[in-house]
């Protein structure tokens, strides 16, 4: 008898099968994922979890006899009161007396439920989405160089000396120039000594002369010549910055209802999941504003009510301050999403536009403006009823070529389509801006 411990064998033997299954059921899984995501609370937005597929979709058919019709026979245990010849009604729903007996092949027709990992979930959730071209271009500019080996150089710092290469060069040069080897000289010296000892003076003299020539040659041809020396060469390579900061700007004045905040929150969550996939390190900064702006934590951001007027430029100023203090644009990818009901003090619009075009937009990878509306006045996304102050201001900026993405949303179910719309993979040259 052998006992084999297989516990240390690589697990995940079924991974290939699972991937095949996911590929097969992709369309259905995607639909299920979006339905599931809608029912979830925000905080677990990017967790994996169970999804249900319609059973028929991944059904494996086989030839088997139908569950009803014809003449059937059942054999059951546990008879207490029946005697031969009794008749009994068919149980409702199922055919035959087999109470809770399943379908013949043992597989019920329930939904097929299974668990997705977090990665699979997010993968499906964000499928076909990509950062807009605009951001990619900017991404290439915001780089930190990294040094990479790139062959050899004839000059360099001694610490970068490439020893093997240097000795190899020296060896080939010595062979090419026929520099005498040390043991060759030693052998000749021995032979000369031996000849001398044997009394063959003529021969010894010839050997001595030959030896002197070899020694001269060895001293003229250096063991290592400056020509041989090689240094490891390093080239600077640009590396995209792998960290990002996400600014959530929100108007928290009295006109923003809980419903509007909820919409904004959903949008922020999506953006967060999305950025999390692209960058190793994503930080989130919450800035709320009324007529004054303030950086707060997430809890306060969403939950504590404020009163006051609405001055958008204060939030932008606060953002500029935070960027200046903690997130220099050359080492951070900056994303900003602003949510508002569109109100702004009329006199502030010009200042807002100025701050955006001159300071913020050049620093940001992406700036999105989400105008949230009341649930009651729901309209299809893209349908504009009455332009708000902020909308008009931004629309003018976009018309002038500023890279701002903006959308209107008034119902929870629009959030995802709008998000997809903003980030859908686009052909080059197409601007991800206007609705």
């Amino acid at each position, binding site marked *: *008898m*052998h*006992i*084999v*411990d*297989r*516990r240390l*064998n690589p*697990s*995940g*033997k*079924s991974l*290939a*099968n699972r*991937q*095949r*299954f*996911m590929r*097969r*059921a992709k369309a259905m899984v995607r639909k299920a994922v979006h339905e599931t995501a809608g029912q979830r609370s925000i905080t677990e937005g990017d967790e994996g979890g*169970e999804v249900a597929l319609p059973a028929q979709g*991944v059904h*494996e*058919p*086989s*030839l*088997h*006899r*139908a*569950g009803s*019709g*014809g*003449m*059937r*026979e*059942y*054999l*059951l*245990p*546990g*008879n207490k009161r*029946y*005697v*031969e*010849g*009794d*008749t*009994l*009604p068919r149980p409702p729903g199922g*055919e*035959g*007396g*087999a*109470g*809770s*007996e*399943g379908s013949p092949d043992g597989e019920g027709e329930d939904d097929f*439920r*299974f*668990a997705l990992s977090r990665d699979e979930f997010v993968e499906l959730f964000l499928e076909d989405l990509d950062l807009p071209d605009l951001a990619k271009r900017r991404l290439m500019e915001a780089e930190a160089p990294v040094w990479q080996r790139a062959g050899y150089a004839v000059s360099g710092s001694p610490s970068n000396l490439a020893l093997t290469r240097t000795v190899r060069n020296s060896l080939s040069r010595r062979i090419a120039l026929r520099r005498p080897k040390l043991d060759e000289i030693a052998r000749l010296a021995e032979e000369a000594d031996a000849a001398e000892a044997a009394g063959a003076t003529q021969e010894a003299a010839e050997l001595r002369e030959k030896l002197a020539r070899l020694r001269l040659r060895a001293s003229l041809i250096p063991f290592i010549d400056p020509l041989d020396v090689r240094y490891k060469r390093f080239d600077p390579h640009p590396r995209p910055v792998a960290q990002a900061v996400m600014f959530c700007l929100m108007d928290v004045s009295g006109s923003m209802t809980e419903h509007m905040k909820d919409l904004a929150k959903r949008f922020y969550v999506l953006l967060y999941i999305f950025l999390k996939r692209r960058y190793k390190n994503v930080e989130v900064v919450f800035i709320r504003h009324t007529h004054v702006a303030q950086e707060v934590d997430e809890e306060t951001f969403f939950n504590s009510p404020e009163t006051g007027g609405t001055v958008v430029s204060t939030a932008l100023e606060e953002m500029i301050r935070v960027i200046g203090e903690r997130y220099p644009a050359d080492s951070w990818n900056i994303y900003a999403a602003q949510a508002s009901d569109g109100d702004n003090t009329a006199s502030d619009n010009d200042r807002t536009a100025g701050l955006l075009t001159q300071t913020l937009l050049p620093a940001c990878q992406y700036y999105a403006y989400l105008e949230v509306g009341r649930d009651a006045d729901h309209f299809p996304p893209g349908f504009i009823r009455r332009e708000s102050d902020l909308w008009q201001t931004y629309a003018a900026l976009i018309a002038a070529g500023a890279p701002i993405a903006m959308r209107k949303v008034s119902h929870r179910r629009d959030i995802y389509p709008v998000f997809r719309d903003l980030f859908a993979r686009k052909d080059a040259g197409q601007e991800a801006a206007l609705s």
Partner: protein
Amino acid sequence: MNDSIVRIPLFERADWEFSTIQRAYDAIETIALGDLGLSVYPNQIEVISTEQMLDAYSSVGMPVFYKHWSFGKQFARNQGMYQAGMQGLAYEIVINSNPCISYIMEENTATMQALVIAHAAFGHNHFFKNNYLFQQWTDADGILDYLEFARNYIASCEERYGDAAVERLLDAAHALMGQAVDRYPRRRPADLRSEQLRARERRDHDERMFNDLWRTVPGQGQVRADPSTEETRRAILQLPQENILYFLEKTAPRLAPWQREILRIVRQIAQYFYPQSQTKVMNEGCATYVHYRIMNRLHETGRITDGAMVEFLRSHTNVVFQPEFDDPRYSGINPYALGFAMMQDIERIATAPTEEDRAWFPAIAGNGDAMGCLREVWANYRDESFILQYLSPRLIRQFGLFAITDDAAAPEMRVEAIHDERGYKRIQRALARQYDVSHIAPDIQVVDVDLAGDRRLIVQHRARNGVLLDARDAAQVLQHLADLWSYDVLLKEIDPSGESVLKEHRASPRPGIAQALFG
């Protein structure tokens, strides 16, 4: 057995290490081979983790298997159920191979490991080695090598012809897997090792012999018999044929050689599992009876503690629990319960028979050799014949078995037989029929091909008792069949007595599978 040295318990705590398993195995082996007289393949016991158990579940318990999405689906389902706590995992999986491989889970307690070794490594192992069906149909020496070959072959096909083409073919082949077994032995001996060699030789031979000139040699057409007469056509095509995958592998006109080879692989694997479906009650009954005897013997000789015995009994009674038909937990007859009860019953009949038993089982009643009877039974029966022969009136009363007929034409169902003098025989027969493959599986055969006309394949279902095929599934399977055949397919459901056609299904091939020939 020397009682003076075996009084020390094998283990006293729940945790175990490899030496514990070795000690338990040795003690169990002594009882199994000595007291019970079992004959087993050499054992190999493999310790695996939960996740590996789930992996094994999804490849029908085999350590090596080819890749297909349906196994991924199986895995996803099991994992979901397991994580939701709706389903426990089996304590073990045992593979009919030589050496016999048993997987045991690392989470099991020492008692459970002993139980699992007794159950799988001796009970199932003995059954695999000695039962005539397994000897006739499976090749325990070659199965692992063949599965390895199958996996590599299918993987190389995926590389050469693309995942999509292979997946479509496997989908179609899996749909017909139930119609891919030979129910009666043919000339071919079951030897999977030489299967691999033959597959390679077939390809080599075809490549060597290929010469386009043969096509132009005159006179070829004259020697061939005229296929238009039904008799010669049926002889050439070996009709009627109930092994549909075999038929397609040999005669489907437009399949590429690799596609035929894959059909062959699916067919061979279906055939390997065929005996298991016919011996569920016996196999589990045998293993459960063996572990019950062994654990009791270990306890009697003081090798397991009282605590371990209670733990074992708790697990054992869970396994052999049979809910009654009106219990919400009822989901059919539990093969463990029925099998174990019948094995114990045979022991009782052999050692302490009643008058009734002497009348019903004159051959074994009171012969005193319970293990001899059981070993004979395990070797020579399958579920259907076993129940027909050995289901005793006493057990019928104990289970309260009763038979019901449900005629769709009648307004109500009727109780046909109960546990009384008039009913015993009828209940035996009715229960045996539930385990008779030829009764459960629909009788489907390829009957004819219209060779002179549009090459339509005609398949027939003889609808026993007027029960038709599940229409939705039948349509899907027929579509797969048409794809493989690459011409139209007609499925007739006929009444076996009057030969009148009850229902017809048709399908036309979709482009895809057969195109591979020209690609």
